[in-house]
């Protein structure tokens, strides 16, 4: 059964320096509150995995939490660059980070294989691309039945998965609605998991085929209202697209970034 913890306790207990951490949510339900708590607790040398690093990893990389990033699309959607990620890659600020990059299809398959307990995933992918030349987790194999050459990618098996969801019931079962992304897969692929939720309710009111994670498949649950903002939680609040645009200016400059982090992360404690 999942433990109900405060966000501070959940991060302190389950995320350690040097861990491989996957904080997922495909544009929707991005676990920003949890990311900010990781920053406040000054976790270091993390291998961060996310299909779309988004602002949450831009902030964590800029704050010095990461030693490695595994990803498939590292931009500010519809706006431009992630400037803290670029500064780390182009100028080693605040520290150098290693990267391993995939395509979305390959990374989705790698999570799926991780959830299925397999060592690798197979897909019709990376044909003609230079990505296999720079990522040693991509190989090509021949289909044993047809001989077709297919891509194989190592599965993703993180130490810790972190996701945000709309709600949990009092037994710790979690409902995810809307763009469900890769969240079920990452929780099942990981050794431990933290789920932050908008609210804890008596009854999930889930449809029979809804995306529900049972309590016994989750390690810890923490209530974190607006915990996905400035991304969004369907049914609770919209994506703050204006902030995503503003972030471009904030993150472009190291001092502006640090001032923003001080005011909005370090001086704001979690519940």
């Amino acid at each position, binding site marked *: 059964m999942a433990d109900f913890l405060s966000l501070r306790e959940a991060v302190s207990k389950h995320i350690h320096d040097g861990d491989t951490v996957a904080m997922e949510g*495909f*544009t*929707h339900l991005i676990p920003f509150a949890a990311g900010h708590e990781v920053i406040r607790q000054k976790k270091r040398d993390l291998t961060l995995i996310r*299909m*779309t690093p988004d602002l949450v990893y831009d902030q964590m990389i800029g704050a010095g939490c990461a030693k490695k990033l595994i*990803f*498939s*699309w*590292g*931009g500010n*959607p*519809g*706006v431009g*660059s*992630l400037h803290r*990620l*670029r500064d780390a*890659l*182009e100028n080693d600020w605040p520290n150098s980070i290693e990267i391993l*990059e*995939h*395509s*979305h*299809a*390959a990374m*989705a*398959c790698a*999570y*799926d294989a991780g959830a299925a307990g397999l060592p690798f995933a197979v*897909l*019709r*992918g*990376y*044909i*003609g*691309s*230079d*990505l296999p030349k*720079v990522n040693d987790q991509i190989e090509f194999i021949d289909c044993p039945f047809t001989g*077709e050459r297919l891509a194989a990618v190592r599965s993703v098996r993180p130490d810790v998965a972190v996701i945000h969801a709309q709600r949990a019931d009092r037994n710790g079962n979690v409902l995810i609605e*809307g*763009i*469900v*992304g*890769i969240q*079920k*897969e990452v929780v099942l692929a990981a050794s431990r998991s933290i789920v932050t939720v908008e609210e804890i309710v008596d009854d999930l009111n889930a449809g029979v085929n809804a*995306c529900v994670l049972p309590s016994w498949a989750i390690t810890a649950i923490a209530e974190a209202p607006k915990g996905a903002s400035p991304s*969004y939680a*369907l049914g609770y609040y*919209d*994506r*703050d*697209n*204006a*902030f*995503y*645009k503003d972030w471009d200016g904030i993150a472009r400059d190291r001092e502006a970034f640090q001032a923003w982090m001080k005011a909005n992360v370090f001086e704001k404690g979690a519940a």
Partner: protein
Amino acid sequence: MSLEFTSSEMMSVTAARALTSEMTCFVGIGLPSEAANLARLTHAPDITLIYESGTLQTRPDVLPLSIGDGELCQSALTTVSVPEMFRYWLQGGHISVGFLGTAQIDRYANLNTTLIGDYRAPKVRLPGGGGAPEIATNAKEVFITLKHSKRTFVKDVDFLTTVGFGRDGKARDNVPNIGRGPTVVITDLCVLKPDPETRELVVHQLHPGVTREDVINATGWEIRFADELGTTPAPTAKELEILRSLKARTDAHHAGQH
């Protein structure tokens, strides 16, 4: 009567016209999304639009800023998980057209969205592959749209993120179970198509008011022109009106969200 329009509008309208109601289109964010929704709001009302966030058959009222805005999910027929999207719907062969943007394109329509310079010491780091590497091979054909300049149209891409026809034009030869690859590239100056033999991009139409010299000066290789070079029809008043109101709606929506 001649209408006033910008080269960006010319590009979006031309890209939209490449789409039809019969198509199932996997839509990239940015210019492709603008063109695909313009098509849906004009001549292709029944086109099926699919975004990689898992939203199937979506009909957004404003253009999404990200690939997963709530608007896409709420106006979709249904929303599936990301692995299901890539494995069943794309790799499974249900997409007729992949519509992509890019930072750089070369003469064989290979796309670079990874970086400028050396991989381990990039001059400019770009976002990376995203959905494009597999959209480009698993969709039955690929449309590409981007602004035309010496910086974007290069002889050879610095990094080959997403295959057009490979470094030698032959990357798709004898590869089973993949699509035809890029069939048209639409820019703010012209429309290009790959040569049926060599696969090198050739200019087929110039937009109104654009000269051969304009295209030559904005292309990083010795660009060829088709023997029968056409002129793209100018946008109609209706196309411009719908495009401008879509963009105005979108800007107002995204500005008012704080």
